[in-house]
């Protein structure tokens, strides 16, 4: 049955080459932990992606309850945490995932650095990776404000002050992020919400696509 559906689609769209590009390749021995245990360091990138997928899924569920306005943001998180069935687990996964993704991404960066995998011809992929790193930090920073509790508000205040100290364009960045040159309030929360949920994930997905297309095209770097 499945084969028939596949053949039906393949006859019209010729999807076999796509499949071949994505999945039909050999994995070399030096990155396979089944052959060399030390090759587990090659798992960090995959695990980073795994947590990213969990972050996207848990985040989608969180937005079913979260309300991005200063009256209700904290209340909705409190409700989610204490009243909603498994709300504590969903929020917990998003909260801890945010830290774990930074840890795994950092380990992945170190692996690529110390195996010299960023060298020709993989310079572009390394640069896209650094951009993913920056986007992830941005997601962490914007997500920290959303529960609208004390630490969220005051940490964001400090963060925005740091952004405002950028020479020449600091004030603009501040107004762009906070929505106002002095107040950190309702506007800031909706902006951070939009950045956290729409802008940065869109950038992240684009960069991840570039990252993966490049790794498929160039293959993983050879053994040291």
């Amino acid at each position, binding site marked *: 049955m499945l084969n028939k559906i596949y053949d039906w689609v393949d006859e019209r769209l010729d999807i076999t080459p796509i499949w071949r590009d994505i999945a039909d390749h050999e994995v*070399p021995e030096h990155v396979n932990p089944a052959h060399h245990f030390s090759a587990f360091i090659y798992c960090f990138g995959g695990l980073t992606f795994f947590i990213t997928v969990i972050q996207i899924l848990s985040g989608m569920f969180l937005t079913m309850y979260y309300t991005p306005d200063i009256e209700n943001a904290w209340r909705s998180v*409190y409700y989610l945490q204490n009243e909603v069935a498994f709300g504590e687990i969903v929020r*917990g996964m998003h909260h801890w995932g945010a*830290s774990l993704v930074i840890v795994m991404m950092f380990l992945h960066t170190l692996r690529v650095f110390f195996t010299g995998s960023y060298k020709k011809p993989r310079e572009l992929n390394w640069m896209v990776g650094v951009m993913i790193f920056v986007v992830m930090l941005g997601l962490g920073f914007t997500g920290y404000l959303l529960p609208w509790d*004390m630490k969220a508000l005051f940490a964001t205040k400090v963060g925005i002050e740091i952004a405002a*100290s950028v020479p020449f364009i600091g004030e603009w960045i501040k107004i762009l992020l906070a929505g106002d040159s002095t107040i950190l309030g309702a506007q800031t929360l909706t902006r951070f919400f939009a950045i956290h949920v729409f802008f940065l994930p869109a950038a992240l997905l684009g960069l991840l696509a570039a990252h993966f297309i490049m790794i498929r095209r160039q293959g993983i770097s050879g053994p040291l």
Partner: protein
Amino acid sequence: MHRGKGMKFVGDSRIRSYEKNRIPKDYSEYPGKTEAFWPNFLLKEWIIGAVFLVGYLILTAAHPSPLERQADPTDTGYIPLPDWYFLQMYQLLKYEFASGPWNIVGAIIMPGLAIGALLLVPFMDTSKERRPFKRPLPTAFMLLTLFAMIYLTWESVANHDWEAAKAQGEIVEEAEFDTSDPGYEIYMGQSCVTCHGENFEGTPAGVPLTGTGHTPEEIADIAVNGVVKDGQQTMPADAFSGSEEELQQLAEFLSTVTQQ
């Protein structure tokens, strides 16, 4: 750059036809045992993912994610702390060479240099050598950076008063109380209210009264003698001034709050 005319494409596609095959060499040409990605290798990755997920879920179940009290912009005494991976930057900004007039060094220049250097690593380290010990400079720089990051984070964690941080953010339940009680009037009329707040929620000068569990006798004693903690007078003596009967009423009333 070779573009347009004279360029050979594969079939009718836009894929350029190279004289030499540019596709990375097949891994079967590498020494050793290769394995098909689909499905063999992916199933093994699946196992690693499952083990990781178990640890992740145990962490989530064992440590519920924190939530402090609702943001209150007027509480200027709150000492902020960013998420742990920004602690290094937070710590850096405390040093003399990176704060005050030099704030731009700690806030912009140093992080900018770090990210910029990381971004441009492939163009600075252009040798063919890949082993870390055969390219000592990049390895040394990265180790130095790692050491600095760990040190700064460590310093930040060690210098933070975690108990005070926990206390300042705690969610305070609102007390239920009877405003028609004579004890309530005494509370509002005495100096108690200025430090412990109109709703017994506490202020920077006085602890919240809810949930302390004190009995009426203990409350009466505290109101007269104050509180001595670790040899220090944390609440002054003789805070209460009034008759013995009023003291009794106040203590009876406050015990309905402290027992909550």
